């Protein structure tokens, strides 16, 4: 572990990686915008509204899973610098989920408040979706360094809500599909793996701590959000 940690990129390299990842995360959005306006030979197909809502929703869900994949990847690879990308990935999840909701509210329902409220009350899959968005909101708002410092221990507790949000997101997708549940099933499977890893990792680490208490405390360098 220690040997690998020394290979962490320096400040400049990390900055470059962050910019690159940022642009990569923005790419699906840019392609969707180009397609929505028929630029560069792209199009959203015969049902553009459906395509836009579906694609932004899928990307929201994908970024939730990508965010949740950071900790397992870091643990398994020892690349601790991966954790430094997690906040940005999480914010992209929020960005795509918000775009998903706005596509629905602004473009599909054209901000007809009554219809949106009716949907939220009467259609359980929409209720779930809105619930997921509402739970994401405080996480996005408290993602700054200042908020992190201000909330201290409670910050970590609050941000564990992403587990619930991801479950709600997959559930929302599951209830939305007409008949073929294969795709939501795949997302559910990946989510189960990512959450299952955490349980397994915690048991493994408590076991280690019991066997080698000294070694464990030496390697456990507390860093921001390392518990997630």
């Amino acid at each position, binding site marked *: 572990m220690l040997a690998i940690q020394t290979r962490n990129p320096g400040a400049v390299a990390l900055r470059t990686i962050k910019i690159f990842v940022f642009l990569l995360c923005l790419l699906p959005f840019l392609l969707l915008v180009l397609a929505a306006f*028929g630029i560069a030979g792209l199009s959203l197909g015969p049902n553009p509204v*459906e395509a836009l809502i579906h694609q932004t929703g899928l990307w929201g869900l994908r970024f939730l899973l990508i965010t949740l994949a950071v900790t397992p990847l870091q643990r398994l690879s020892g690349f601790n610098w991966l954790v430094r990308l997690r906040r940005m990935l999480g914010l992209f999840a929020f960005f795509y989920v918000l775009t998903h909701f706005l596509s629905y509210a602004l473009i599909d329902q054209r901000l007809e408040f009554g219809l949106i409220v009716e949907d939220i009350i009467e259609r359980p899959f929409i209720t779930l979706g809105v619930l997921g968005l509402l739970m994401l909101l405080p996480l996005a708002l408290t993602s700054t360094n200042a908020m992190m410092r201000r909330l201290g221990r409670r910050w970590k507790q609050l941000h564990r809500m992403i587990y619930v949000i991801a479950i709600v997101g997959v559930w929302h997708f599951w209830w939305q599909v007409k*008949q073929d549940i294969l795709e939501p099933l795949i*997302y559910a499977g990946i989510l189960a793996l990512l959450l299952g890893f955490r349980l397994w990792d915690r048991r493994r680490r408590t076991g280690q701590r019991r066997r080698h208490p000294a070694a464990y405390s030496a390697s456990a360098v507390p860093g921001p959000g390392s518990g997630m």
Partner: protein
Amino acid sequence: MSRSNTMKTLCRSHGKRRKMLIRKAPIIRPSEITDEHTYLNRRQFLRLAGFTAAGTLAGSLPGALVAAEPKAALLPDVVKTGFGVGETPNTYEDITTYNNFYEFGTGKGDPYRYAGGLVTRPWQVSVSGECERSGEFGYEDIIGPHTLEERIYRLRCVEAWSMVIPWVGFPLADLVKRFKPTSRAKYVKFTTLDDPSQMPGQRRAVLDWPYVEALTIAEATNPLALMTVGLYGRELPNQNGAPLRLVVPWKYGFKSIKSVVAIEFTEKQPRTSWEKAAASEYGFYANVNPEVDHPRWSQARERRIGADLFAAKQPTLMFNGYTEEVGYLYKDLDLRRNF
């Protein structure tokens, strides 16, 4: 199906086709040439299909994406009718690239991508049940005596989108009469081809294959019900249910069964595929009805395919706007319960 019967039909179909070839001179009319705008649109769609498919975790990779496939053959002697005059039909591209045909996959672009392997000639239709003239009929026997007509119908999908399609076909009522249903025939059951080697979507049990749909005999003999063989004056592309499909414009699209291989007259109400899949969501009647919502979404409005991204949805009409023609069929029916 007996071998001799098959041979007879095969020979007959060959004879017929030769005759048709002689009748139709190979002249390319200006209308047959895809205009540049349509061609470019198609290219755009194909590129997007690749782009969205690539972004799908489930990995519905684009199959045989051909840049510009030729359109289906023109049908001879199609009579124009007054149905749908004033409606603006969707483009050929929209109608043939955005389909629900789960036999080829559950994605809207899947039928367009994967229906190429469907063999539609020779095509046999088995007619059975409560009728005097049951038996095996070749495609040519089925359409033989009928005059093909073009009817522009609205199509309302249960998923709250709609299209306007210039179908080519003949009244189902005329076909039903030829089989002489008995007095015990209360329903007409239709079955789609069941062959996973041609229909890759059937390799997964998304629905209980084969696909089954049914109408009451009164519905089947209503003049609006159309046995359909083409669209835009051409033979049906595979993804639209070639070579023979039903079009029942006052019902949700899933009632308009595609690629029909069996017609059965029954006394008891058949259980349809969507009833079997989710009886609480899809009923036997499935009449378009803005007042009865699907349990998971509203049916009050619909999105017209081909409309601009920022276009508003339009109100859904009772019986999809065909109340005058079919309203009498449901006078005494509780449409909320019989959805």
